Every structure is written in structure tokens, then in C-alpha cells.
């Protein structure tokens, strides 16, 4: 999995490419955590349009990023979920909790 983090006028952006399983999520949680804690962007967008597959490890990644962003009052936005990723969140019963939509802040 490739993970890149950047900041700009619109806030922070975390872009994931590949398959977000347990193996990949370990590195993703670490990199995203370091990025959020260093720059503390008010709004963070997680772009998952390049993620073709995720399991519950992807949920752990999103929860981890959300917790870190909320620690300083920021917001997390999830963008580009494909049907399989969206179904993971729905099946786990947390789509509402995360307020996942086309582009939503969580």
C-alpha cells in the first residue's frame, strides 16, 4: 500500500493506494498518526479512491485517524470509498457512527 500525506489551503490530505488490510494498516496508522500530530490540520481528508479492498483493519485505521484529529478539535473527511469499502462500514454497523457519505466530515 502507498500512503502519502500533504497539507494545503484546504487542510491535510491522506491519500491511500492499494489494499488496506492488517499488514498495510500498521504502516498507514503510523504514518497518518505522525502526520496529524505534527501538522494538526483543522480538516483532514482521507482519499480512499485508490483503495480497492479493505477489511476491518481499515475501520481501525479510520478510527485511529479520527481519534487523533478530534483530540485537537479537527474534522476528518472520508472520500472515494468504493462499494466494497462502503459495505464493510455498513455491515459493521458503523456507517452512521462515522457518518460516511459521498464526502462527509467525521
Amino acid at each position, binding site marked *: 500500500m502507498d500512503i502519502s500525506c500533504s497539507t494545503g489551503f484546504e487542510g491535510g490530505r491522506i491519500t491511500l493506494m492499494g*489494499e488496506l488490510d492488517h499488514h498495510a494498516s*500498521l504502516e498507514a496508522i503510523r504514518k497518518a498518526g505522525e502526520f496529524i500530530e505534527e501538522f494538526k490540520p483543522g480538516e483532514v481528508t482521507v482519499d480512499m479512491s485508490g483503495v480497492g479492498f479493505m*477489511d*476491518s483493519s481499515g*475501520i*481501525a485505521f479510520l478510527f485511529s485517524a479520527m481519534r487523533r484529529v478530534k483530540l485537537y478539535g479537527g474534522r476528518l473527511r472520508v472520500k472515494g470509498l468504493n462499494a466494497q469499502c462502503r*459495505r*464493510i462500514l455498513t455491515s459493521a454497523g458503523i456507517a452512521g457512527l462515522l457518518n460516511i457519505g459521498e464526502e462527509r466530515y467525521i
Partner: protein
Amino acid sequence: MKNKDSVRLEMPALSVNEGFARVFASAFAARLDPTLEELADIRTAVSEAVTNAIVHAYPDGVGTVVLTARVKGERLLEYTVKDRGRGIEDIPQAMTPMFTTGGEERSGLGFTIMESFTDSLKVTSSPGKGTTVRFCKKIAPRL
């Protein structure tokens, strides 16, 4: 093996093997011509079961995880993920949504997702001897 139409993958309990296990499972399923959604369901359930074994079974080393796939009925696939690790003392608790002993990297939703993505799921375990996760997935006939 009792059933001739089955395959077996034995792998070290290392997270790097999760992706290979998914490929193995979906390659076997291809013989029943599943839809993309059915294939995604199988990949997801296998990923969860194999990851559970990798994360929880062998806290003091790297053991072995065995993934078996077989055609059980005309349109029914059965997958089994077996380890010989420390086992689960309380299976209902382990299957409770959001329960995890895995820390920040785990969500505690693996079994919940497995149940949602399969047609049946059975977990058996003996503390100190290992755990077996078995699930079935029906493949709808293609018109």
C-alpha cells in the same frame, strides 16, 4: 484429503501473507463463476479469519495457519482457517462487536464482518490447542 475438489494452503502466521491468502481463496472460487460482489465477500471473510489467526494465535512466535477451500455443494464453497495457537477461551466474548485484545490496530469487528459476508460461520477453539474458523458462501447460479 477426503474431498477431491479441495485445496490447502499452509503459511507462516505473518501479516505479509494476508494478501496471498485472499488471492488463493478467490482463485479457487473462480471455478463457480461468482459475481464480483460474491468474490469480494469471500476475499473479505478470508482476510478477517486469516488476520485473526496471525494477530492472536501465536503471541510468542510465528506458527502456522492453514487455509482450506472446497466445493461443498453444487453452488456452495466452504473455507476453513485453522491454527494451532493459544486458542480462544470465551468465543461469544471474542465475537462481540467492538471487543478486541489487539489494541489500536484492531477494530474488534472482524467476526461481525465475517458473519455479514458469509452464509454460515462456525468458530471452534480449545485453549492451548488452536482455533478453527469455518464459513460457507453460496454462489448464485448465473443465468
